[in-house]
């Protein structure tokens, strides 16, 4: 398939007696923003490390752009793993030049990238004089050298202040909007929910779930309903035959409808019975809830 950027088949990796990755398979297509979600130690970094050839798997294969991995391929991939790693005694510009040389691309875009991440004023300062936020921003600039088709990010907002986190998320969304495929590992549900189109949920090296983020979110939405006469509302819902579950939550009824019934039908049905809603809202099951359920199942 032409659209397929990455295919992982049955990867397995153990560190001594610890099984870090257990029969892990995944497919990523062009243009997807793919989140690998899992608690710390679930095998996210190991997976990304294998894809970048810095960790050797015990068994299993992966293919980038439909081909067996080789080092020149990685010139098409931008990567940011864990903490930023640079030569501390070299300036930002020299560090980026080394990366450009490794990727075999011209230096032309370096200034532009430094401008984009807001480091122009300090571009000739040595890396070791940078603050953590600056280091992280330089790492992002580094990952964009050579106009990569795929961007791999491992916990890109780890340890940053709220403003930097917002900036970096915006940057990722901007990058993704230009058709670059993004593979993002995070233990932050909120981050994956905000940025990603697809998600793979990983726990203790096992793939628990994979699919579109909105599918996960939209699986059986709940409705928040409120009317002047809550008892009449409850009665009407009970006898409607389209409701699976009604839960009281403070002043509202939280209602799970069967699959065919949307908010519009509910509203129409209640109006016909003379019940006028004062509040109607759809509540998505959060990724967090889904995630915690899956992890709990895995541990059971």
């Amino acid at each position, binding site marked *: 398939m032409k659209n397929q950027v990455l295919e992982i088949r049955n990867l397995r990796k153990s560190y001594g007696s610890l099984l870090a990755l257990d029969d892990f398979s995944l497919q990523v297509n062009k243009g997807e923003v793919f989140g690998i979600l899992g608690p710390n130690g679930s095998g996210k970094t190991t997976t990304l*490390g294998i894809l*970048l*050839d*810095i*960790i*050797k798997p015990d068994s299993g294969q992966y293919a980038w752009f439909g081909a067996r991995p*080789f*080092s*020149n*391929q*990685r*010139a098409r*991939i931008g*990567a940011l*793993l864990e903490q930023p*790693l*640079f*030569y*501390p*005694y*070299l*300036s930002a510009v*020299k560090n980026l*030049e*080394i*990366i450009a*040389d*490794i*990727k*075999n691309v011209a230096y032309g875009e370096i200034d532009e990238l430094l401008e984009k991440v807001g480091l122009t004023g300090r571009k000739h300062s040595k890396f070791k004089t940078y603050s953590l936020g600056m280091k992280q921003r330089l790492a992002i600039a*580094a990952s964009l050298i050579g106009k990569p088709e795929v961007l791999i990010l491992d916990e890109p907002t780890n340890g940053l202040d709220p403003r930097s986190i917002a900036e970096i998320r915006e940057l990722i969304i901007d990058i993704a909007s230009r058709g670059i495929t993004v593979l993002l590992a995070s233990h932050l549900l909120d981050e994956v929910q905000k940025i990603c189109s697809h998600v793979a949920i990983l726990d203790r090296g096992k793939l628990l779930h994979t699919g579109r983020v909105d599918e996960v979110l939209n699986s059986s939405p709940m409705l928040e309903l409120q009317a002047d006469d809550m008892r009449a509302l409850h009665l009407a819902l009970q006898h409607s035959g389209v409701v699976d579950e009604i839960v009281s939550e403070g002043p509202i009824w939280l209602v799970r409808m069967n699959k065919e019934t949307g908010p519009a039908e509910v509203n129409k049905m209640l109006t016909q019975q003379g019940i006028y809603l004062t509040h109607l809202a759809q509540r998505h099951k959060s990724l967090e809830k889904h995630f915690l359920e899956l992890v709990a199942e895995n541990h059971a």
Partner: protein
Amino acid sequence: MLRLIKIDFKKYAYNRTFWILLLTYFILIVSVFFFAEKFLNLFVADAKTNVPLPVPDFSFYSFPYVWHNLAFFGGFFKILTGLIVVIFVTNEYSYKTIRQNVMNGMGRGEFLLSKVIFAGLLSISAALVLVISGLILGLVNTPELRFSLIFTNIGFIAAYFLELFSFSLLAMLIGFLLRQSGLSIVMLAIYFYIAEPILVRLLPDKVSSFLPVESMANLIDFPNSELMKMFNVNFNEFVSLPDVFICSFWSVFFVGMAYLLLRNRDF
């Protein structure tokens, strides 16, 4: 390959430690070259007082002997070029930049090759220092200068290069193996000054001459002097060909081992 040189050049050219070490080495080695004769003649002068025969002073710097003499004495300081290689190989681990380099698209083999090239260029520069020093000293000190004399025995320059290069490769392997600079330096020094000398004593000559550092040292034998000839002591006046093969074997072996290490390891 040019790409690898370009990449590595940036890593060293802007590093102060690198220049300090290199300059220290060059100053030291040039001083050794230029003062070796004075130093040796002290012994000859001492010998004169004890020996009833007239002992001639050394013609240490005259062509073609200068190449052999300088190469022999320069060889004692190969630990310093080895040190530079160890430091810059282990630096890549302590900065974790080896990881970053590979991630960015450098092959593991390419990374190794870049360090082999570094060791090679370092040894070539050291050999160039020998060439320049030898030329100056030879031109000044050769009584009857003939053009052909200058080029006699220049094989010692190549042997000097091989000695430094194969030792640098041993240092590189230790760096890749141990990954920590302090530990690697100590182990290199222990091997060079203690472990192998002990082995050489324990093993019969036939076996010990195949050891790496021993074969590197055997490449260039002790230079003959007039004094020694008087006592009928005769050392090899040519580069020892068997040792060229042994050293070359070790060089290939060190690179091969480093490749196996790098190929299978996680960073």
